[in-house]
């Protein structure tokens, strides 16, 4: 389908849950927008051997992924390779920030897997009050001030470089191993960040045995927690709160797979993907009758 027209169901994630949801929704003749990776799921392809997937005794993850891909090809389902950074509940539809594009869908199925790793101590408490997740959003508010960036992947170096153009001092804390390439306007601090603190109305980045002062700290991660991906979504720890129909706290938004909780099993994820798709189809029917 043309990405500019509103999809019936946008599915975020290409592990077993997202793929099964896409297959079921396609069988039910819905306009599906499947967002994820053409390599499907790293967790899946890296699995050495899966022993309890129905019909595939002792299958290697890579081979199961190939079987999934063949199933998608047979049904003509394509994957749009974009990272979704935000899902906005607009009322009667959802807007998805996917890379530079804004996509629209009547319903959304979240199947992004579970986010490993906890926020830094002091991160959540100071969000919006010295801690920011979006350099381009809040750049104008820190113009002329000293800031710090905690980057979890080399991709975030571009954001730090951008802040270097408008801030007199930028400290960059890489939370990964390997080369860091940044212009002279950014100071790289190769110390592991252990926490963030508010001190005298300023932020302090605790790293090594020192505290580094900054007006604002930008914490930039590859994977975002579900409550951050979908503002207003009810969560329980790292998981999205859903009922047996895979309905979340937001009408029209469903979740399935590891993101809704344990057990983290492939066959359970696929089953939930099936439920989520059928629930989304039911929701679309209801909407049609209301209109």
């Amino acid at each position, binding site marked *: 389908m043309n990405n500019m027209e509103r999809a019936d169901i946008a599915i975020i994630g290409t592990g077993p849950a997202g793929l099964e949801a896409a297959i079921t929704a396609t069988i039910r003749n819905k306009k599906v927008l499947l967002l994820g990776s053409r390599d499907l799921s790293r967790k899946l392809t890296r699995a050495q051997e899966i022993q309890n997937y129905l019909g595939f005794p002792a299958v290697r993850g890579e081979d199961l992924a190939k079987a999934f891909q063949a199933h998608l090809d047979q049904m003509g389902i394509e994957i749009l390779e974009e990272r979704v950074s935000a899902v906005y509940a607009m009322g009667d539809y959802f807007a998805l920030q996917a890379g530079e594009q804004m996509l629209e869908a009547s319903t959304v199925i979240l199947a992004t897997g579970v986010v490993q790793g906890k926020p830094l101590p002091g991160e959540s408490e100071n969000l919006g009050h010295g801690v920011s997740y979006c350099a381009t*959003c809040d750049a104008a*508010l820190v113009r002329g001030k000293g800031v710090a960036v905690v980057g979890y992947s080399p991709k975030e170096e571009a954001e730090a470089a951008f802040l270097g153009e408008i801030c007199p001092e930028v400290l960059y804390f890489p939370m990964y191993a390997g080369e860091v390439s940044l212009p002279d306007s950014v100071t790289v601090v190769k110390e592991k960040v252990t926490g963030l603190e508010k001190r005298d109305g300023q932020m302090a980045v605790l790293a090594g045995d020192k505290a580094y002062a900054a007006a604002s700290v930008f914490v930039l991660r590859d994977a975002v927690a579900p409550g951050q991906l979908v*503002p207003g979504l009810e969560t329980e720890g790292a998981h999205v709160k859903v009922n047996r129909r895979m309905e979340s706290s937001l009408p029209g938004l469903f979740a399935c797979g590891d993101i809704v909780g344990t057990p983290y099993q492939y066959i359970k994820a696929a089953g939930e993907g099936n439920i989520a798709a059928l629930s989304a189809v039911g929701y679309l029917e209801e909407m049609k009758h209301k209109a």
Partner: protein
Amino acid sequence: MVKKIDGQAFQTEAKAADVAVVDFNATWCGPCKMLSPVLEAVSEELGDKVSFYAVDVDDNPDLAAEYRVQSIPCLVLMKKGAFVDQSIGFKPQAAISGWISGNL
């Protein structure tokens, strides 16, 4: 309706209102753009009790600094000019009207 105002109208109108919700935003901020139609819908819902305004932080840096706006979008709720509460980031309509009603 959400009324776009500058620093002067902020002093005369927003601060004088019984209950005012001020949306601090900017043209280049994605979440702000998404929040604006949602806030418009909230204003239809609660417009008889609450006055709604929008302030561009680029045009009004002093106001943004005065209200310690560090992340946008940022909604500031005031009663007769006195700060009551703020809400940061995009939120769905029900969450925003719930937040406002809880502060009435």
